[in-house]
């Protein structure tokens, strides 16, 4: 039925002309705006949350001479992990003997990676030398049979002494921790021992993303940049 016919019928029924009144449906504009606003707030909150998570993941403070262990291959990582795990034994042997143990003693004590029988084949060719500064010690390792491997230095520092070799943070984070260990690598597979200052000789300090120190901004850590002038005693090895 058309609209005109319906009006005519209604006029006839009412006995005269009638006024047409258009009744609009309820206005949904406000609800629509409200909904859009709510969606906008949710999207904004999600975005902010995403940004904050992303920022947390990337919040690592690396020094120019530091590199993440993530970039090491499996073999390098195995050596890196083995070196860091030696600290307990190095500390115990130092307490026992009054000086840092030389690499040969660590080998004798069956401590990897110094003990060749406790590392995979491709790490057995490494030769280790010891440089004892009395308050810290450096073990330098290189593989004379390979031109592919890094040179490595394991530096173990007595934190309960006044001087920490550069660039170790001057502050101790855990008063119960007496010894700290650092692993440094150099691309030259047979790099000569450089002395205390490793960074200026092109060595890089391998750090793990798990290291809580990397989550603190550099200015929160007082780095000592002086040198001690101490001369190491080369101990053990072929002299």
């Amino acid at each position, binding site marked *: 039925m058309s609209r005109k016919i319906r009006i005519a019928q209604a006029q006839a029924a009412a006995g005269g002309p009638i006024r047409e009144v258009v009744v609009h449906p309820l206005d949904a504009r406000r609800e629509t705006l409200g909904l859009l606003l709510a969606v906008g707030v949710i999207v904004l909150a999600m975005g902010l949350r995403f940004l904050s998570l992303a920022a947390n993941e990337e919040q690592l403070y690396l020094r120019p001479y530091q590199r993440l262990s993530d970039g090491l291959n499996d073999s390098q990582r195995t050596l890196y992990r083995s070196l860091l795990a030696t600290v*307990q034994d190095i500390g115990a042997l130092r307490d026992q003997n009054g000086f840092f143990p030389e690499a040969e003693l660590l080998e004798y004590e069956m401590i990897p990676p110094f003990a060749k029988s*406790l590392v995979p084949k491709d790490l057995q060719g490494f030769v280790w030398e010891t440089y004892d500064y009395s308050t810290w010690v450096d073990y330098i390792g290189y593989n004379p049979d390979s031109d592919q491997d890094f040179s490595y230095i394991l530096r173990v520092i007595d934190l309960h002494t006044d001087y920490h070799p550069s660039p170790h943070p001057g502050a101790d984070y855990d008063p119960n921790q007496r010894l700290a260990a650092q692993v440094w690598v150099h691309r030259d597979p047979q790099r000569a021992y450089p002395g205390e200052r490793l960074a200026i000789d092109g060595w890089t300090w391998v750090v793990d993303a798990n290291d809580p120190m990397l989550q603190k901004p550099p200015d929160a850590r007082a780095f000592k940049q002086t040198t001690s002038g101490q001369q190491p005693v080369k101990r053990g090895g072929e002299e």
Partner: protein
Amino acid sequence: MRRSFARWAVGVSALALCLILAGSAAAQDEEEAPKPRIGVTLHPYYSWVRNIVGDKMDVVPIIPANADPHSYQPRPVDLANLKGLSAIVVNNLGHDEFIKPMLKSAGQENLKQIEPNRGVPLIKIHIDVPEGEDASQVAYNSHSYLSITSGTQQIANIAQDLGSIDPDNADFYRANARSYSKRLRRLLGNALAEINKMDTSKASIASVHDGYSYILQELGLNVVAVIQPRHGIEPNPRQLQDTIKRIKTANANILFTELDYDKKYVDIITAETGCKLYSLSHVSGGEYTDDLFEAKMEKNLNTIVEAVRDTQ
């Protein structure tokens, strides 16, 4: 004469009585002094702490012996295990997430937490997802306890922290930790003595569990494909197809599975790829015993040696 003897006898008796009383009081004190209680969230930590502390501390597992830490849901009865603890050893890398709500519920949020993974190098996980899916997810492998080398570093960390809780016995804990680590290294040495004699380039390894990467790395073995990158996630058909494709591409001939892993996926892959299947323990179940970690790791190492030998 008689009087002086009587005086002497009374004096000696009084002294003896004093000594006996003092001795028994000291013994009573020793007996009654409560030992520090150390909670542990994972099975390996139980073995480690027990081997460090001997009888100087009580070691309290938080979850039941046969509960899987990945699927464990805290129960009110287990909250009682948190009572009276001096500290708790936690993984804190995502392997024991259940402990946070438990500590909160028990009002023990300030309980000293010993984190063995402090300073331990972790393996980054690149979650290998099929083409077209988001490949940007990165995480760190929380199974650092499935390794002798990382294990010894963590044992040293725990011993150090326990020494700060009980300084009188700090040397004892350190000595025990060293001696235990020596025993564990002997296991590694035995396995390496065999593996280093073999041509490991013939072993192309796939695994259903990325947690084995730590132990395989320290044996000089590489994993070419991980089938199930995270616990509790069953591969969908597309991922399964992708995995089979990757194993075929990598030409893997060894497949390490979990002892309790659902074999249906493994069987499909084995049938499709021809990989030989070997089971490794995740060391996350069974009765809590001092030698659990040692025994399971020795078995794991022997299984790995056997698998590599079969490829020669």
